[in-house]
C-alpha cells in the first residue's frame, strides 16, 4: 500500500513537472526572453561581413555598447572601419509602454545627429540585412506569442515560438527557436505581409562569458536580396560600469571620423 502510495506521488510529481514544463505560455516565454539577464551593461567589438549573392564581401568593424536603465535599454553603435563609414554612429533609446524607440543616426558628413523616423525603421541599417526595426527589442505585449513546438537547435533543446505583431511592424510573423535553459533566441525566421519567409537569423556559436550566454557568431540572411550579414564578436565585456553620458546625443555628435 505504502509502495502504491509512493508510486502515485512520484507519478503525480512527474505529471506535475511535465505539466509545469509544457505549461509555459507563449507570452510567458516572451517575457522570459525580454527579461533575460544580459548584464547591467555590455560592450561588444564586432567584425561584420556583408556578403552579396556572388560571395563578394565587404568588411566592417564596429563597437556596440548597451546599458540597462531600469529595465529599458539604451544602445550605442559606432563604426570604426572602413574609412568611408568610420565615425557613423547610432543611438537607440527604449521607452516604457508602446512608445516607439527614439533613434538617432550621426553621419560625419552631416556633422549632426538626425532623428530616424518610423518609416525609416523598415530601411536597412547602413546597408546591412538588419532594418532599423530589427535593431530594437520588441516588447512582449507588441506581439501575440504562441509556442508551436520544440526542437533542438545548436544541439540545445529549444522552444519554437511564433510571434504575430499586434502593433506596427514590417513583418507578418516571426518564428524563433529559443534555448530552454538560457532563453536566448538561437534562430528566427521572418515573414513578410504576404506570409512569405523573407529573412533568416541564425546564431552559429554561443559562448558563456561572465556567466551570460552570448551569441558570438550570427548570420542574418535576406532571402529576397540573397544577401547576408555575418557578425563575429571578437571582444565581449560585461558590467564595466559604462557611464550614462555615453548614451546621449552629445556623445554621438562628439564622434570624430
Amino acid at each position, binding site marked *: 500500500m505504502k509502495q502504491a502510495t509512493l508510486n502515485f506521488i512520484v507519478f503525480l510529481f512527474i505529471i506535475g513537472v511535465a505539466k509545469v514544463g509544457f505549461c509555459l505560455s507563449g507570452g510567458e516565454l516572451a517575457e522570459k526572453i525580454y527579461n533575460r539577464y544580459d548584464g547591467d551593461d555590455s560592450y561588444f567589438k564586432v*567584425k561584420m561581413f556583408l556578403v552579396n549573392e556572388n560571395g563578394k564581401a565587404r568588411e566592417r568593424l564596429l563597437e556596440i555598447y548597451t546599458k540597462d536603465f531600469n529595465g529599458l535599454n539604451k544602445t550605442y553603435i559606432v563604426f570604426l572601419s572602413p574609412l568611408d563609414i568610420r565615425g557613423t554612429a547610432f543611438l537607440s533609446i527604449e521607452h516604457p509602454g508602446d512608445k516607439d524607440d527614439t533613434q538617432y543616426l550621426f553621419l560625419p558628413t552631416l556633422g549632426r545627429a538626425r532623428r530616424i523616423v518610423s518609416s525609416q525603421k523598415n530601411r536597412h541599417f547602413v546597408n546591412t540585412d538588419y532594418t532599423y526595426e530589427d535593431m530594437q527589442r520588441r516588447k512582449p505585449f507588441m506581439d501575440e506569442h504562441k509556442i508551436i513546438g520544440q526542437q533542438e537547435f545548436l544541439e540545445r533543446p529549444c522552444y519554437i515560438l511564433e510571434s504575430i505583431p499586434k502593433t506596427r511592424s514590417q513583418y507578418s510573423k516571426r518564428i524563433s527557436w529559443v534555448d530552454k535553459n538560457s532563453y536566448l533566441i538561437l534562430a528566427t525566421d521572418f515573414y513578410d505581409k504576404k506570409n512569405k519567409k523573407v529573412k533568416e537569423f541564425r546564431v552559429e*556559436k554561443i559562448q558563456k562569458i561572465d556567466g551570460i550566454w552570448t551569441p558570438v557568431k550570427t548570420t542574418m540572411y535576406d532571402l529576397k536580396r540573397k544577401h547576408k550579414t555575418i557578425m563575429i564578436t571578437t571582444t565581449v565585456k560585461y558590467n564595466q560600469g559604462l557611464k550614462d553620458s555615453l548614451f546621449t546625443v552629445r556623445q554621438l555628435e562628439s564622434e570624430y571620423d
Partner: protein
Amino acid sequence: MRIVVMAVFILMSFSAILNAEPDDQPYLDALKIAELKLAMLNTTGDKDNNDSKAEEIKDDIEGNRDSETNISFKQRLEFRISEDMASSDNCESQHRVDLRYRPTLKGESALSKLRFVSELDVRVAGEYGCCDSTEGEVLVGENFLFLDNDRWNLSLGFRKFTWGKLDKIAVIDRVNPYDMRDFFVWDKNERKLPSFNCALNLLLRDVEVDFIFVPFFTQDKYLFFNSDWAIFGRLKELIEKGSYSQTVKTAVEQIKVADDGDVTKRRLRNAEYNVRIRGQLKDVDFSFYYMYHYNHVPVLGGSKIVKAFLYNPTESNLNALVSQTSSEDRVLRREYNRLNIIGMDFETTFYDWGIRGEFAWFSKMPFLDNHYGLCYKDLLFIGLGADYTFPNDLYMNWQFLEQIVANYIELYGVDRYSHTVVLSLSKSFFDGDLELSIDFVKRFPYDDYLVNPELSYRLTNRTKFIFGGYWFGGSYNSIFGPYTDNDFVYGAFDVRF
C-alpha cells in the same frame, strides 16, 4: 604649366589608390581571421565554466578603440575636373581642376580622456580658358585638444561645430566662418572654416549647455574680383580687355576692397560668444541659442558712386566712377558690425515624417539701400524642414525658409519677405554603391535658382567616383543669377586612405 599640374594631380591620385590597401580582401580569408579571433575568445571562456571571463583580444584591425591609447593617421584626397557649359562672351574659365588633400592625425587616451585632432587642408586650384592661373594654399584644418569627462567636456583649438537642425542652410549654424570663394559649389560642412575657439559642454541632468568662446573674430572668405565666383565676377578683366580709354581702365583698376582693421585685428574685444541650451520635452528635441557675434559676411562701406558701378555696371555709372571719384574714393572698406542673434530649433518625428525647424532673430543686420548706402535692419528667419522615405527607398528632404526684414525700406536685392525652398531627393542602388541625388534651391520673389544633380559610385570602401553639374538662373541682382554663365559639369574622385 597646366600639363605639369594635371600630371602631378593624376600621379598623386593614382598613387593614393594604388597605395590604399585592398578593402575587398578575399572574404574567406578575412572571415578566417575573425573566426580565429573568435576561437581565441572561446579559449578564454570554457563553455561549462560559469566564472570564466573573456580576456580582451588585442585587435590588429585598423581603428582599435578599446586599447588605452590610440593614434591613427588618415588621409583624404579629392580631385575634381569641371567644365564650363554656358557659352558667354565674357571672360571666364572654361576648365577648372581642384585638388584637396587632407591628412589627419588623431590620438586619444582612454585613460586620461584626452583626445587630439590635427588636420591640414591643402588645396590646389587651376583655372584655364580666360586668365589661366594655378594657385595653392595650405589651410589649418581642425586642430584641437579635447578633454572628455562624464558630465562635461572641454576643447581648445581650431574646431568646427554644427548648430541648428536644417540641412544645407545656415541660419543658426554660424559659429564658424565659411569659405565662399567658390560660392556654393562645395557642401556646407566643406565650406566651413575651423576658427580658434574654446568650447565647454556641460551635461546637467537632462539639459545640456554649450559655451563657445571665439577670442578672435574670423570673417567669411569672399573674393570680390578676378574669379568666376567672385562677388563682382570678372568685371575688372572685362574693362581691362575691352575697348575703353586708359583713364577708364585705370579708374576701374584702382577699385580695391580694404579690410576693417579694427575688427579683424586679433584683439579680445573682438571676441564672439555663443551659448546653446539643449534638451528634450516630450518627444521633441529642442535648443535655444544666443550669439554675440560680428556679421561674418563683409558689407562694403565707402563711395556710393563706386558701389553703384560695381553692383550695376552701366555706361552712366562707369562715367560717374571716372569723373566723380578720386583714387582714394575707389578704395572701399569691408565692414563688419556686431550682431545679437537669438534663436531656437526643434526636431521630432510625426508619423512617417521627420520634422525640424529653426527660428532666429538677428539684430541690426547690414543691408545696402537702393542708393548703395549702408543701413541696418532687424531680420527674422523662420525655417521648417520635413523628410520622408518612400516605400521604394526614395528619400525626400524638403525645407522652406522665410526671411522677414523688420521696418522695411527699399533695399538693394532684398525684399521685405523672401521665400526659399530647398528640395533634396536621393536614391541608392546596388547596396548603396550607386547613389543618385538632386538638390534644388529656388528663391521665389527673385526667381533665381540653383540645381545640382549628382551621381556617385563607390568603387571600393575607399574610392568613390562622382559626376554632377550645377545650373544657375535668375536676375543680375539676385544671389544665383549673376552666376548663370558659370553652369558647369564635373567629374571627381574621392579617395580615403
